[in-house]
């Protein structure tokens, strides 16, 4: 079936299978920042923003994405740089596989949490699993980005 997808403010006319996950389509279109991890909705590395809300692209049907604004980390521009700098400055970026999804979720969290605390940050990021950094370095950087001491 043919769909029009709005990805990072660019319209793509593309053909998909009815049961194809958005993750698969994004990677076919060259958005390799969107990673395939567990592919079952548990690890969060496939996260993208759908109308500004972090969503697992492995569970989101591409056929349902038509009419919504899809944002990957490539679409965040300088906002992404600021988050990446905060994480890297704490030496937290190791293999980098979870990095793009963590940056996207942190970006959405900053917009959503009016009164961030360390507990709220941890809770918000519970769906982002990192296989190698142990989270502490990432959390230090994100706390600084969120303005939490």
């Amino acid at each position: 079936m043919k769909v029009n997808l709005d990805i990072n403010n660019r319209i793509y006319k593309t053909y998909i299978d009815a049961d194809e996950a958005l993750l698969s389509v994004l990677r076919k279109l060259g958005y390799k920042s969107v990673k395939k991890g567990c592919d079952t909705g548990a690890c969060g590395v496939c996260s993208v923003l759908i109308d500004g809300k972090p969503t697992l692209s492995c569970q989101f049907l591409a056929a349902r994405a038509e009419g919504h604004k899809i944002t990957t980390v490539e679409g965040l521009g300088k906002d992404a740089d600021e988050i990446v700098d905060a994480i890297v400055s704490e030496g937290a970026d190791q293999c980098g596989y979870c990095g793009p999804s963590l940056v996207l979720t942190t970006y959405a969290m900053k917009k959503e949490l009016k009164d961030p605390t360390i507990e709220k940050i941890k809770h918000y990021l519970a769906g982002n699993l990192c296989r190698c950094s142990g989270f502490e370095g990432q959390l230090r950087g994100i706390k600084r980005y969120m303005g939490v001491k």
Partner: protein
Amino acid sequence: MRFEKIVKPKNFETALKILKDDPDSVILGGTTFLRLSDKKYSTAIDLADLDLDYIIENEDNIEIGAYTSLRTIEKDTIINKHFGDLLPKAVEHIIGVQFRNNAKIGGAVFGRLGFSEIITALLVLDCELQFEENGIVPFAEFVSNWKIKRDILKKIVIKKKPGKCLYKMLRTSDADFPILSVAVSNFDEIKISVGTRPSIAKLSQEASRMINSDNSKIIEASNLIVKEFTFGDDMRASGKYREKIAPVLVSRALQEVLS
């Protein structure tokens, strides 16, 4: 799950006709099982065009559309105003924000899943489900009765009542399924539900009767839960462990509700 085509009906009548005419069709919820099953369907019915994503408060009820996400329910101020943190507590540990932004309350309810925490919580509210074909069905009746399989869940209607309610659970890991979940309410009478046993949540009859007849019998009623319910084994806990945990959670919940 696999399917050959996806349709987006413009009204409920069309959606129900497709569902009834084609035994291999399926109604889509949040598609959280998209990659967890190889089951094949002919047609997937997407209700996204039927405006089922809402939370409305009217004079007597709160209505939740079947396509409302668990994350919306978690954050909603109307629900929180009337039922405290009962529903937010029942959904806030499900995987992560990304998952809950996509998972729908309709799918969580209609699937009658044993690990569903939201079913445990909704059971202690005065709650009804509205279906396209079967009309209005009391929530507890739907949960214990498997007759409704091919219908469209449109909304969940919760009656507003003064009183207290709360949710308690035990889990070993933040984003994993719980070992046990308990909800207690005190509106017209005290209701106790126990879920993720690991089978589907159920309302207590005997323990509820005891505590309603004498509010001081918290320990006795809590201990009765073990006799009243069956507790099974799964990879998270044994039935015997659940039997030890259940009276503790119920007792704590009753103490808080009755305080």
